[in-house]
């Protein structure tokens, strides 16, 4: 079982290549919004979803994609999928 910090670190590693706003990325918290704060575009959001699937060996659906707007929601979705 991963701790919360370990999960955030893993997500940060996945998100890093796609971030446009580096200052917002440095100040990342659970409330950071992928689009509004990090200025990630929609195509790279899909890349992040696909990278999360590979990293955690899970399958994400359209609903998950729509909900995955912030670091917190991404953590909740990944944690939920890992429990299944």
């Amino acid at each position, binding site marked *: 079982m991963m701790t919360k910090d370990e999960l955030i670190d893993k997500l940060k590693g996945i998100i890093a290549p796609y971030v446009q706003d580096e200052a917002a990325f440095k100040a990342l918290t659970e409330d950071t919004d992928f689009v509004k704060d990090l200025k990630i575009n*929609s*195509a790279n*959001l899909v890349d992040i979803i*696909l990278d999360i699937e590979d990293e955690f060996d899970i399958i994400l659906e359209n609903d998950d*994609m729509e909900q995955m707007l912030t670091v917190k929601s991404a953590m909740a979705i990944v944690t939920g999928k890992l429990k299944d």
Partner: protein
Amino acid sequence: MVANTCYKGKFLIDITMTTEDIRARLPYQDPFLFVDGIDAVSEEGITGHYTFKADAPFYKGHFKDNPITPGVLLTECMAQIGVVCLGMYLLKDTLQTGITPQIALTSHQMDFYIPVLPGETVTVISEKEVFRFHKLKCKVKLMNAKGELVCRGKISGMLSV
């Protein structure tokens, strides 16, 4: 019309969308349409062709007294055939007549090997790498009439109905 006859009936269910249907749905027109025809299409990829008109105005400036097809236009041709036409085909079940999906180029990486001169016909061959959450990413190559590799790379776009 080419449809799927070349796939020996494997994709028989797909003959509802012909290559003419695909072309008719494209949101481009002259002077920025770079698709003359589709030669084959399936869920996995597409092949199409285009002839760069010898009298196209950009040859006057690219380059002075030395007309060569700009790489950006080769890339555009590859994106129109390899990503947009293929995308139209992949979305065929969700597209209603007369509706064109919204499209946007989101990234491309391209390596160029030899030039394309005015009047040359090129063939674009595209293989689908991934199509999920409205993003279509393809491995695309462009060949000249002699079958030589002109350029190759990866192109991604977003398509939503």
